[in-house]
């Protein structure tokens, strides 16, 4: 067994968080940023090694009675998740430089923010790399802790309530997942050798009924996390009351554990049940997609609106996963990656906006573009990425999801194209109401002279790399797709599905 590089990758931010807490208040956030960048560098090394064909898997016996192991591995899908986590985190830290209370005697200052973000990053990384169900479960639950404090400790009025709501939803999902995990253990124990390792569990014989029950347990837990309608209501509340930086991490990274879990656990552990449930799941996902988009159009709060767009996007991702084609599943995985950055940019731009004006209501804005053109431009670019404009990475993934699902089921794929119009509507409506039109008095007061209160250098550095990622992978998605495709092919063969053949003659 070689050096446990993946464990090191996950441990760096965790240890780093401790270091941050013990550094002086003044240098805390700088240390935090340094550690998150260190994690990013390490992750890039890991991705490079894995892409070069190095076997990074590690496995240590943990609790023999359960067959639990400390097991990590990283295939294309995991690496994609790892990448989005490490690429988003440092920039959220930069953007949230002044978050929290300036006279942070009660501990909720930027230093605590950095530490909590690092803890969250570490737990999320372990989640994405775990190949043992128990390890995954533990970190799945553990992510709730830093996020609870991030929402409850920083943010707007009502944050405590939103944090509790988030926590209860998370714990509820965790409880359901625990039932599933126990069930999986019981079955493996019944088969003679208790084990928690994914590799051993996949393909384990189990009764059809049992498999379906366990699938439903896992799926509900992940649907709560992702979130899918009707389990979504915690997300707008959390986004409304948390700081936008927190929300970017919440939606960009943590919620991905839900969709990631669907691929890794629902599909790989319960292939038969996945196919059995696919029609219902697809319809639910389609409802999520349209519901989220419509709710976003009707929303009056900027942050809630962005949260609803994510509900819609997660609908797309789930459609891609459960359509069972190489195209759609690769697209869905790539979608998760892109969504982190497009939503990240939107949340951060909203953060900059709200920080200046002190209100989240769309109605309180107007004409910002004139006074802060760069801020407006960033906001628009984030929005365009969210509506999947060709040339941006989100288009590639969204189109792959639509086209892949269409080749499997023309109705799901066909109806999902409606999302294109709805996305354009909610983004441009918000942009029109906040950024264009005559400059309102309140906005003038908040932004002052023309360009005097536009994005600062630090803020530009926080979003520019994210936008760069969006554009680069929009025109050159090949590296990411090449990374994802083999893993998706493996998953597909585990589920026992293959791409629909081309219908050269009319199939209608």
């Amino acid at each position, binding site marked *: 067994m070689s050096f446990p590089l993946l464990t090191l990758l996950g441990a760096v931010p965790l240890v780093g968080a401790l270091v941050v807490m013990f550094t002086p208040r003044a240098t805390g956030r700088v240390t935090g940023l340094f550690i998150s960048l260190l994690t990013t560098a390490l992750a890039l090394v890991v991705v490079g090694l894995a892409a070069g064909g190095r076997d990074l898997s590690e496995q240590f016996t943990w609790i023999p009675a359960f067959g639990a192991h400390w097991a990590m591995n990283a295939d294309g899908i995991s690496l994609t998740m790892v990448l989005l986590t490490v690429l988003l985190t440092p920039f959220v830290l930069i953007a949230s430089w002044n978050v929290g209370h300036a006279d942070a005697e009660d501990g909720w200052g930027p230093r605590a923010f950095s530490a909590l973000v690092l803890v969250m990053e570490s737990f999320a990384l372990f989640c994405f790399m775990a190949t043992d169900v128990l390890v995954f479960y533990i970190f799945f639950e553990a992510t709730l802790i830093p996020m609870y404090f991030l929402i409850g400790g920083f943010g707007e009025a009502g944050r405590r309530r939103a944090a509790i*709501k988030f926590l209860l939803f998370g714990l509820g999902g965790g409880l359901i997942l625990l039932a599933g995990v126990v069930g999986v253990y019981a079955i493996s124990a019944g088969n003679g050798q208790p084990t928690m390792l994914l590799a051993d569990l996949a393909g384990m014989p189990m009764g059809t009924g049992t498999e379906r029950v366990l699938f439903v347990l896992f799926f509900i837990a992940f649907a709560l996390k992702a979130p899918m309608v*009707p389990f*979504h*209501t*915690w997300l707008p*509340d959390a986004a409304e009351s948390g700081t936008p930086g927190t929300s970017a991490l919440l939606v960009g990274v943590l919620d991905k554990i839900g969709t990631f879990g669907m691929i890794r656990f629902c599909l790989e552990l319960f292939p038969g049940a996945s196919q059995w449930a696919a029609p219902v799941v697809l319809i639910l996902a389609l409802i999520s997609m349209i*519901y989220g988009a419509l*709710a976003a*159009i*009707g*929303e009056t709060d900027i942050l809630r609106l962005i949260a609803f767009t994510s509900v819609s996007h997660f609908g797309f991702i789930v459609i891609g996963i459960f359509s069972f*084609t*190489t*195209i759609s599943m*690769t*697209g869905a995985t790539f979608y998760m990656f892109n969504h982190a950055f497009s939503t990240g940019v939107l949340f951060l731009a909203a953060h900059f906006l709200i920080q200046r004006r002190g209100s989240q209501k769309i109605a309180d804005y107007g*004409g910002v*573009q*004139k006074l802060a053109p760069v801020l407006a*431009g960033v906001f628009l670019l984030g929005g*365009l990425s969210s509506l999947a*404009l*060709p*040339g941006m990475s989100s*288009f*590639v993934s969204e189109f792959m999801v*639509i*086209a892949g699902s269409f*080749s499997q089921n*023309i109705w799901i*794929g*066909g109806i999902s*194209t*409606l999302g*294109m*119009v709805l996305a354009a509507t909610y983004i*441009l*409506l918000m*942009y*029109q109401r906040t*950024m*264009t*039109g*005559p*400059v309102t008095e309140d906005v003038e007061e908040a932004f002052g002279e023309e360009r005097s209160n536009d994005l600062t250098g630090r803020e530009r550095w926080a979003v520019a790399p994210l936008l760069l990622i969006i554009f680069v992978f929009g*025109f*050159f*998605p*090949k590296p990411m*797709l090449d990374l994802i*495709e083999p893993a998706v092919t493996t998953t597909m063969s585990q589920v026992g599905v293959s*791409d*629909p053949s*081309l*219908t*050269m*003659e*009319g*199939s*209608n």
Partner: protein
Amino acid sequence: MVNPLQTAILEPVAASGLFQMAWLMIAIPLVSAAFLLLVGKASNAWGHLLATLAPIASFGIGLALFFQLLGASVAERTVEVPVYEWIGVGPWDVQIALLVDQLSILFVLLITGVGSLIHIYSIGYMEHDERRRRFFAYLNLFIAAMLVLVLANSYLVLFIGWEGVGLASYLLIGFWQHRPAAAAAAKKAFVMNRVGDIGMALAMITMFAHFGSVEFAEVGKNAAQFSPLTATLVGLFLLLAACGKSAQVPLQAWLLDAMEGPTPVSALIHAATMVTAGVYLIVRSGPIFDQTPVASTAVVVVGTVTLLVGAWIGTSKDDIKKVLAGSTMSQIGYMILAAGIGPAGYVFAIFHLLTHGFFKANMFLGAGSIMHGMDDDVNMRNFGALGRAMRWTFLTFAMGYLAIIGFPFFAGFYSKDHIIVAAFEHNMIVGICALIGAGITAYYMTRLMVMTFFGRKRWEHGVHPHESPGVMVFPLVVLAILSVVAGVAMNSWINGWLVPAVGGEEHTYGLLDGFTEPIGWLTMGVVAIGVVIAVSVFKSVPKEAPRGNFLERAARRDVYGDDINNAVVVNPLMAFIGLLTGFDRGKVDGAVEGIGASTSGLGQVLRRLQSGYVRSYGLTMVAGAVLVGAVLILGQLA
């Protein structure tokens, strides 16, 4: 039905020599746009000059390629230029590659040529706008996107350009964002285009599902394998896409609002180039439409209806730009109609597209010149007698006017005549509609000319019309010359040039064909009637618009386009969203909150047990002990 006309099958040859540099045409304006936007204020002083050089450079490359193609044999005129692999997953292998052929190179020349002229014009027109650099950056972005659109070798790459021009259009319509009307118009244009894009996406995913490819050559080769129903559906999807982009009924409502943008934008995007992308799409998709008479008929119907509706709107607007916008809809209707006829009409559609690009850009820029002299007034009731005040503008505008009404030997005379003849050959009713459209065109354009350049002065107080600076007049002159000569120059040549690329019938058209056919005379007669009516009606123009008859009132309201959209789509959708938002907060979130509330409600009830009386606790304990004892004893007995 066997089509006697030849259908074009694309068989591209690999690029060599200069063709390998074709991507530079796109890259130059794109880099220029990005550069100007990123550098910011530092480039304010010279940004517009750099931006103007970009399309000129692209035009130079395009011209060189055009001459290369002219010199090549017919089989070697379809050149594919691979750039790099874009999406290669599973069965897909989508390359970013360019297709330079007889059709796309004409578009390249139109886009970069007219684009360059409009860049030059904008130097003068936007001189006093503090955000001029940004305007030019957007224009460059548009040129790049439009070139991607026409040079793409597959539908998916075309779609990049398709949405890219949509974005540029959005940015430019809303360029004066502080005006709520401009911001709303920009959003409306983008969203309505997106409705059309659904069609585009559906067409593409159907092609992917059937062929695993969306390359023009591949799809064209395999189109015959579509079942009739699939072919019809794909045809209708493509028509929907074309309707969105080209402002055809029923997605026409955005174009009139788009006139909120600066006038050079209206000339470039909403007259000469972007709005004709739908025509390009249909012509490019010829092999698909050849499989489906239903979809082709739908295209003809859409074109015919739009050419009449657009002309109708043009008759009653007082806003000079909106008259021209209505006219643009109408003329694109002609092109769509021609494209719907099939291979017999493709060449004419493109021919009219090119001449229209010249004369309509000319007239829009002329309108901009008038606005420049009239303090940005667009109301023709405040114009009058401008012919003397703005001589160059008047003369160049007149050339465009004569071209659009189809005055003999001017550009429109040739290109429109072909379409009307083809329409009559296709179907008598369609032909008559096209003929009537020509008459209405003559009517509203004459009305515009009379109200603007002739008659009494009706100028607002303090307005002193003056001729525009040379930098604005120069493009007008060039475009006016093109409006005059484009028809004569291309009439005999373009059919032979395009037929191998788009299909059709090898035939050489003479310059005097219009005088030898009865339909030609008929057209000229109808046009003359239109002109005469307009001249007699608008001898004197009241300052206040008269109430007008029912037809005029409908036209002023854009033939109720917005009202229909609102009644059918927007209002029901918004009402539904209102319900949904309430449902989300009340029912879905309410269920969650309800669970929380009932839990704490239960606690409220149970806490009554904590009475504070020790004896009641004791009683409870005793009762519990008795219960446990009883259970144990009963358990023993059982």
